[in-house]
């Protein structure tokens, strides 16, 4: 095993249900449900178990609404599981939210952490203060991230003037600023062009080499190339596949095109039950 064997993330039988109020088809139904509401339970995540070791990088693949973001929210302590347990760095994220928060990073594609009206460096300064990063560490990290992600030239540009690719790079840098040991990336490459994706892939590989655990959720199979090690396929809140990318490719028996077919087959079989 190339990884440190100690598990960083352990999820067992992790489930999260939501209660959704029903709207009603017509006016009569709506008025009826306005007076006496009706609910439906949606199982966003249903009994998922896995264990991720330090330094491992995982691609968490699923269709829209498969439960990817819910999983990330559970792992970050944003949501509390309906059933099952989860630990990150040996702690239940929800119970030890602050302690967990210091050691994880979260990037949500399309939702920037940058202070919209201010030059990029102001966002870094504020986040440095928020995470209580020591001045010398802060300096060194900024230097490193500026170099790797090539954001030095953007340093004095107001965030609202950045292109999507530039913004994504800055957001990535912000996510890694406080030396998190685990980083969650939710659709980080959404809307990016090929070159921008390549840059992000290189950066994430670099961070992997530094031993950071990467958990990348995406609906895009191409993102598997970014995170090479392990793939988890999730569908309707259930785990369909958990293994190395090679294993998945073997199942597919060929290149990415076939991989797509294999994944589709997984989904179809899951639909049939």
């Amino acid at each position, binding site marked *: 095993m190339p990884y440190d064997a100690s598990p960083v993330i352990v999820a067992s039988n992790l489930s999260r249900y939501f209660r959704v*109020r029903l*709207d*009603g088809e017509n*006016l009569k139904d*709506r*008025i009826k*449900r*306005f007076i006496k*509401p009706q609910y439906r339970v949606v199982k966003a995540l249903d009994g998922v178990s896995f264990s991720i070791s330090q330094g491992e990088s995982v691609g968490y693949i699923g269709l829209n609404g498969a439960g990817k973001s819910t999983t990330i929210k559970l792992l970050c302590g944003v949501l509390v599981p309906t059933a099952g347990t989860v630990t990150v760095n040996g702690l239940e994220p929800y119970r030890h939210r602050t302690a967990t928060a210091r050691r994880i990073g979260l990037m949500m594609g399309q939702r920037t952490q940058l202070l919209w009206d201010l030059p990029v460096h102001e966002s870094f300064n504020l986040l440095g203060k928020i995470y209580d990063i020591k001045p010398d560490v802060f300096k060194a990290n900024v230097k490193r991230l500026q170099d790797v992600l090539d954001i030095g030239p953007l340093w004095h540009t107001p965030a609202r003037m950045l292109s999507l690719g530039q913004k994504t790079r800055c957001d990535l840098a912000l996510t890694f600023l406080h030396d998190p040991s685990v980083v969650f990336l939710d659709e980080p490459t959404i809307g990016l062009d090929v070159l921008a994706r390549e840059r992000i892939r290189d950066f994430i590989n670099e961070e992997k080499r530094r031993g950071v655990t990467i958990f990348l959720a995406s609906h895009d199979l191409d993102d598997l190339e970014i995170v090479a090690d392990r793939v988890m396929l999730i569908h309707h809140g259930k785990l369909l596949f958990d293994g190395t990318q090679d294993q998945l490719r073997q199942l597919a028996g060929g290149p990415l095109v076939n991989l797509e077919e294999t994944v589709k087959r997984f989904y179809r079989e899951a639909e049939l039950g």
Partner: protein
Amino acid sequence: MKYLMYARSEFIRGFRYRANYWATVISAVALAVIQWYLWHAAYTDKDLIAGLSLDQVLAYTLIGRVAAGFLTAPTAALRIGSRVRTGAIVHDMVKPVDLHTQLLWQGLGRAGFSFVATGLPLLLAMAALGVLEIPSPGRLLLFLISLLMAYVTMFSTSFLSGVFTFYTKTAVGVDYVYTVVSLLSGEFLPLEFFPAWLRTAADYLPFKSMHYIPMAIWSGIAGPGEVVPSLISQCLWTLGMVAVSKMAWSGALKSLTVQGG
């Protein structure tokens, strides 16, 4: 008719938010309660203030509370400025409907929900408690006509402010100008309370068509001889504001298509 559909869907939308609805009801009741006590306290040692009796002022302010939800609904039109900035306006432009008319009807649907779900129960409750007297059928009818015109004037004014923010590139300040408008419209106090010069100013501005006239008709502050002239002036202001806001919008559209946004 498609515009009626807009109104209908907005009306139905109101049923989605249940807890929100109760908060709105409590809010409306609370504001009516404040007005009731405030004016009783203000009239402890007087029979008339600014020539108005306690009953008249109470009728004026309480029916104002009933109509408040109906009249604030069109403020959504303020958002067209931000739709222009974000580019969402393109969706409005490609649709084969007139934005002014569409927003007018959507607002009317929202206003209708607010009136049926909040205003009307409040009105009936106050009538049952004997707090608010319902006027003669004739006055009631004229009140309703006047209220509808007040809505259209209110809508056109907020639409105009929305177009205005398209030129200034910022919506900042519009809300505050609104506060001044609400003072001049008589929402805060009947215009009789104003000093003479401010009263004269308010009489020559369109704002009193947005609140004062319907409430004065209901409460009897507008005497029998004043109702018809008020309605005529309100009607003229309504048509005027509709025309001006439509013109401003088509002007904005033109510069939008020429400059490409």
